[in-house]
């Protein structure tokens, strides 16, 4: 049973990473925004989905499928797919990149404002993801 879970997490994680890569490439191709909205969008979607799934598997799904199956679903889709879909490291790299651009010589956007802007986006992304995660938890818990 544990091996099946492992396989599910492996395939789910791979699929999540693949979807992240595809979606990010798509967004980059059609919408070249300096603020790199791809990772933000992906993390928002994933945080909402995980909140929703967590509440669902703890509540309604556990009742209809049984706690074992609900736990398995939570691991494979939550830890696996959504864990592979969202990314903390890429978000950090993008933040550092913004800071470096803002502090490099010969760049139009002034140094301190650019750095503050980058840090604002760092915390802003977190706050937004917290909010949508809470929303997901609430909506998932409301399912009966």
């Amino acid at each position, binding site marked *: 049973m544990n091996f099946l879970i*492992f396989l599910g*997490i*492996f*395939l*789910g*994680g*791979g*699929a*999540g*990473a*693949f979807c*992240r*890569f*595809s979606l990010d490439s798509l967004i980059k191709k059609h919408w070249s925004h300096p603020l790199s909205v791809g990772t933000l969008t992906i*993390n928002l979607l*994933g*945080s909402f*989905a*995980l*909140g929703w799934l*967590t509440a669902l598997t703890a509540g309604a799904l556990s009742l209809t499928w049984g706690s074992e199956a609900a736990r398995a679903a939570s*691991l494979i889709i*939550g*830890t*696996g797919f*959504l*864990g*592979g*879909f*969202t*990314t*903390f*490291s*890429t*978000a*950090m*790299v993008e*933040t*550092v990149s913004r*800071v*470096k651009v803002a502090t490099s010589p010969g760049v139009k956007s002034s140094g301190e404002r650019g750095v503050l802007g980058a*840090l604002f986006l*760092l*915390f802003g992304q*977190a706050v937004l*993801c*917290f909010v*949508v*995660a*809470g929303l*997901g*938890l609430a909506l998932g818990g409301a399912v009966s």
Partner: protein
Amino acid sequence: MEWSLYYAPPVAPGSSSCLPCGRPLGTPGLTLCKARVYRRDVKEQKIPAGLLVFCGGGVGASLRWILGLLFPALPVTLVINVLGAFALGFLLTFLALSGPEDSSPSGARRRTVRLAVGTGFMGGFTTYSSFAVGSIELIQDDAWGGFFLYALASLCLGFVACFLGVWGAEKTASRQAFHVKRQPEKGGIR
């Protein structure tokens, strides 16, 4: 893995295809450089990007789960995210500084490593969704102190770690003087 240089005489006026291989000009992979050399990049031999990302992501997610099982008492997500931020900052900077991702063997290796280890493994290993849901769950349990500690530690340590990774790669790469190796890897006129 090889690429060949075709040396062709200037294309006749009105002609629209490469003389040696006959492909129409403007075919992807057919480049005209200043010396009027037509180079056919062996794009077909590249490992598909999606496959590399998939495999890396699977390994990353699996490792994250295993670590969570091994250390149930630790804030595993926090540790993983900070380590991953450092590692990805280091890796991407090091790759970028070590050379271009062209059709040369080392360029292809760089691309493979970036996609499989960077986008795939690091992206699958770290997770923003668990960070967000974990933070909200702390609020749900009324642990506001814990929430602020967890959230701020993740964001600040993550940022600093990533910055250190980038800085470390800049130091390492410059020490090995990669920028000296600018000559084309293989090739020659056939």
